[in-house]
């Protein structure tokens, strides 16, 4: 009985998606034009089998994923450095903060034409877009983390006569870790979205975005739908994975 209940509780999150799929299927049976806009599930199923057989889905997903990971890495490292510098050095803050806060207001999409002009539409340009998307939230959260360190812990460090490095590794870094993890979580989401987004705008190379663009050109709406679902599922999976990892690493927290 209890088992049944816990299964039911876990399945609650699937209720809305299931309803959505059902509504979709109903809509697809309301005439030919509807069947184009809302591809019947059976057609989507066929498309999926095809994509899995010829390896397109795997190759596209891996390409998008790889770009996300590399861009995320660059963005996170740069964000950590800039965020920490702005928080810990008044000079760095005065120097960097205005430019950072100004640039951050511009949507990445708005930068794509310029980036394409300067760097072309190859992988490098896409990586730059992904890195930037990850960099903004990372910098902001790192900055927040380092500026909100409890003064009382710094006093303990003073009493114990720690040097700057010890203060950094023993007080500042662990104190900012929660915020930093939050930053990575945001950066991950932005990196994934902008990785696929960059493919939609710069249509060379491979990736889920390219797959969808090509499918649209060939009027294969079922593949577009598969692309959308795939992007959503992958993003969700990465988010869950990282949240769990964070919770494990920060288990000393009183929550």
């Amino acid at each position, binding site marked *: 009985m209890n088992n049944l209940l816990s299964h039911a509780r876990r399945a609650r999150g699937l209720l809305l998606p299931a309803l959505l799929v059902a509504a979709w299927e109903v809509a697809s049976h309301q005439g030919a034009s509807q069947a184009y806009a809302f591809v019947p599930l059976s057609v989507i199923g066929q498309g999926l089998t095809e994509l899995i057989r010829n390896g397109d889905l795997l190759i596209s997903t891996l390409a998008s994923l790889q770009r996300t990971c590399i861009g995320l890495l660059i963005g996170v490292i740069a964000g950590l450095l800039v965020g920490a510098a702005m928080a810990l050095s008044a000079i760095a803050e005065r120097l960097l903060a205005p430019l950072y806060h100004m640039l951050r207001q511009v949507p990445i999409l708005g930068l794509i034409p310029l980036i394409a002009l300067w760097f072309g539409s190859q992988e490098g340009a896409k990586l730059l877009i992904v890195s930037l998307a990850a960099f903004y939230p990372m910098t902001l959260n790192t900055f927040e983390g380092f500026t909100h360190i409890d003064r009382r812990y710094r*006093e*303990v460090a003073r*009493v114990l*006569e720690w040097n700057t490095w010890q203060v950094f590794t023993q007080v500042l870094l*662990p*104190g900012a870790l929660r915020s930093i993890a939050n930053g990575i979580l945001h950066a991950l989401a932005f990196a994934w979205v902008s990785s696929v987004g960059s493919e939609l705008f710069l249509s060379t190379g491979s990736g889920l975005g390219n797959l969808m663009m090509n499918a649209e050109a060939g009027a294969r709406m079922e593949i577009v739908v598969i692309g959308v679902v795939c992007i959503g599922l992958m993003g969700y999976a990465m988010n869950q994975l990282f949240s769990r990892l964070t919770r494990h690493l920060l288990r*000393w927290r*009183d929550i």
Partner: protein
Amino acid sequence: MNASLDQRWLASTSHSPGALQIRELSKHYLLDGQPMEVLKGIDLRVKPGEFVSIVGASGCGKSSLLRLIAGLESDYSGDMQLDGKAITTTSLERGIVFQDHRLFPWKTVAQNIAIALKRSPLTRQEKALRVAEHIRLVNLQGFENAYPHQLSGGMAQRAAIARALITQPKLLLLDEPFGALDALTRISMQRELQRIWVQHRSTMIMVTHDVEEALYLGDRVIVMDARPGRIKYEIDVDLPHPRERHAPRLQELKEILLTELAGSDADK
């Protein structure tokens, strides 16, 4: 057996003196551009190994005095010396226990205590040994790997005391160390601190607003008055340690002290 080991270890390392001499100490803050006197003309001598309690109403500057001795505040006028050396900044010779335990939440009890030895030249084994000794000293065996949020208030404060003592300071400053604890825990912590002090014999200065606590632990109790903070009255507690909490002599002294403290209220 453990107790004798503790005794030997501690005895071998804490025979250093810890004489504090404060002359004409004054301190003021700027409040809206106006100087506000926090402490005025404090004169205080503390003998090595002595336990001095400081009581007073809130705002009498007793915590400021302690922070000055710890070296956490500067810009004072007057003279402060520990064993003849002027106090200018923080030093491992002066340990402090705050009212809030201030353990690092991301470290376990053992790590929180060991972390105080960061600047120590001891080898890894010596440090581990000393951490174990101090965990035993404050009766936290079995909680070495607990995180601060898993501890009760009293246990966390014990860990904080161990962290402050492990560097073997000549002088230990206690800033209302049991102020945030419930009454029962406070009484047992006072007994613990008395035992630790008898065992450790370093100089201790404790700020509190609990008169009973001040008398139970102190060789001497100093009453401070507010605006500006100054020493108003001093009383010697001529009873040997360890003490009986309900000793008639402590009751008598308590009456005297309360009268002194109430007098300072009536002045206002």
